[in-house]
């Protein structure tokens, strides 16, 4: 009943539109992980929900139709996690091409129009929108050329799955590949283009559930199982959406358990290496289970939401809640490294002994 939903006012702005926050909580509740029993000493389960904005902002895109009927899509969004594949997927969807017949490129600052950073969970949404519109622009031009060849009006030409045809009969349907050799005489090459200043589609929500085991003698916390449920709106390439969820969850776990800057009394950083700035290794973790929730974002042709960031937000709180369930101590300092957890356990035991002695 406390969960934010459509119409809830945000802390600093207008009311939420359609969001998938409750759906992520439900997804966790319905997961195999949540439904499984957690047994054993010093083990506990914890859950938390995270919120993060998704920005829109500016992106540019071009779609070039090649002489063999394939295409390239050019954007300015640097690819950190597989986004260029998503741009090819969107282009292929619109043009009716096989995804391997679309080549995605990330161009330099002279070769593509202004594009804001790859960050803020914006790439699939905003650059994806520019790509979608650039591909639609190419389709519009293809229709015009077919219309010219068929001596019809562009409104009479249809485009479905890469094939041009006309509602009014008398013409044989034509694929892009068949049209391309005639582009020169109908006006020249075709490049679809679009620039957008995308409206933010709305924030992102993720819920994370973790099972932990706490070693009462060392304070070490082991992650037994972890599940992340996130609202992606519409996952363009589900493997890479899962990848974002898993990566963010693991960064959140590192933040929760081990990562911190140690400065000495002179203000000099003492752990400026990857041995002592301790990030999770694959030996520290189980498989990271994911549930992609899809509550489509209103106002976006594909319905995608940004997915890159929010998965990092819940884990420290989820781990803290799990530790509380496992050994009954509330951690209020990050990271919850072995020394701090042990101190909290001993403090609790000391208090228990003291109060028992007082009775």
């Amino acid at each position, binding site marked *: 009943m406390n969960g934010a939903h459509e119409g809830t006012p945000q802390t600093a702005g207008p009311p939420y539109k359609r969001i998938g*926050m409750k759906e992520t909580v439900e997804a966790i509740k319905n997961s195999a992980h949540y439904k499984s029993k957690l047994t054993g000493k010093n083990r506990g389960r914890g859950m938390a929900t995270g919120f993060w904005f998704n920005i829109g902002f500016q992106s540019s895109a071009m779609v070039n139709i090649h002489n063999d009927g394939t295409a390239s899509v050019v954007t300015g969004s640097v690819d950190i996690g597989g986004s260029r594949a998503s741009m090819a997927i969107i282009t292929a969807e619109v043009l009716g091409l096989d995804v391997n017949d679309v080549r995605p490129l990330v161009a330099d600052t002279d070769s593509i129009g202004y594009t804001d*950073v790859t960050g803020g969970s914006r790439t699939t949404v905003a650059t994806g929108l520019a790509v979608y519109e650039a591909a639609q622009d190419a389709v519009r031009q293809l229709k015009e050329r077919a219309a010219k060849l068929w001596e019809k009006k562009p409104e009479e030409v249809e485009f479905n799955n890469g094939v041009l045809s006309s509602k009014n009969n008398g013409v044989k349907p034509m694929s892009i590949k068949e049209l391309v050799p005639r582009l020169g005489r109908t006006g020249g090459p075709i490049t679809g283009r679009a620039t957008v200043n995308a409206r933010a589609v709305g924030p992102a929500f993720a819920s994370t559930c973790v099972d932990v085991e706490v070693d009462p003698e060392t304070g070490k916390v082991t992650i037994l199982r972890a599940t992340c449920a996130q609202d992606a709106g519409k996952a363009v390439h589900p493997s890479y959406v899962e990848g974002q969820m898993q990566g963010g969850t693991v960064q959140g776990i590192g933040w929760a358990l081990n990562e911190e800057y140690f400065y000495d009394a002179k*203000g000099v950083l003492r752990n400026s290496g990857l041995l002592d700035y301790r990030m999770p290794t694959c030996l520290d973790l189980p498989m990271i289970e994911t549930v992609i929730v899809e509550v489509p974002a209103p106002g976006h042709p594909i319905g995608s939401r940004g997915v890159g*960031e929010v998965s990092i937000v819940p884990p420290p*709180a*989820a781990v803290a809640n799990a530790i509380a369930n496992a050994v009954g101590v*509330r951690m209020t300092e990050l990271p919850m490294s072995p020394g701090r957890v042990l101190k909290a356990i001993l403090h609790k035991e000391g208090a228990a002994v003291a109060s028992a002695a007082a009775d």
Partner: protein
Amino acid sequence: MAATTEGTHQFRVIGTRPIRHDGVEKVTGAARYGADYSFPGMLYGRVLRSPHAHANIKSIKTDKALKLAGVKAVVTGADLPELPDRIEQGGELPINLHHLSCNILARGKAMYDGHAIAAVAATSPHIAEEALRLIEVEYEVLPPVMTVEDAMAPGAPILLSSLRNKEDGPDKQTNVAAHIQFKRGDVKEGFAKADYVIERSFKSAMVHQGYIEPHNAVGIYNSDGHATIYCSTQGTFVVRSLSAAVLGIPEGKIRVVPAEIGGGFGGKTTIYLEPLSVLLSQKTGHPVKLTMNRAEVLRATGPTSGGTIRCKMGATKDGKIVAAEAWMAYEAGGFPGSPVPMAAMCILAPYDIPNILVDAYDVVVNRPKTAAYRAPGATNAAFASETIVNELASAS
């Protein structure tokens, strides 16, 4: 990996899992990341960094370094133009150009252990490293201020003499760069209605994005005044505009070519080495490649803020949260600009609470200038709010 869908449009390609188009280059080692680029006649650059957390720089002598065989140029803050103290949009967070330039090469003061003081270009990275040892810097070491509590305490040493905040006015020197407040309803009334109230204080440590690839830049300055930068960045256009500003040359004269990038998570949305690579190329007439080693990445790029959050929530017997209050102070690092404004907006965002009060402070300390890290500000905030909500849920 189940996905729940809600009656969405049926797509043909969207939602499938093809092999990524750049996949073969990446698994065969052919993909070129920023540090993989090489050009004929290329020199190697390295940066001299402050060993002190807080110090006045009395003098920098570079003549011995310049005399070392193989060294072609040495630059300091004096080689960069002075920029006005004003806010610009840079990447994900707003940025003050004067502070940005000072972060690239210090002006008169070292603000954290690792702060860039000078840069050299030489014919090998080893010679460049040797040259750093020959640069003579005279420091006047000052007491370091490392935590938000220390920085906000009355009588704390002032880190940036020109820093002012709106609240305290133009005459008060301070380490608090900004105070942001959000209010709704009346928290006093709200708490009065609550049957259960939980209040706790939370601390979080500074953490780094931890991308496996250190920062890099190859700068090529042409005698016609045009420059090209090859670098691993999350924002080529940000590199262009901010490098142009720091160097004092028109934006249109810089072309930024995106190399493949080995992770960013927000930490590569600003600039560190890029303008230095162009500056050194301009001084030497050669392409110059700069890379950071891991110690430099941790000491001198942009980790995210640690800080203190005091959070209080009240709920009625039937489980409705009626009031929530948060006091948050985040470490900005040596220059202002922590993600505390976003954190303030996020901390209560998942919930529908009628009475709230959030006070958030951006505090300068002798640590590296913070940068964005995946949902900047939100994770520490959620740690606080979500554990209290969890406690409240068990109480009621």
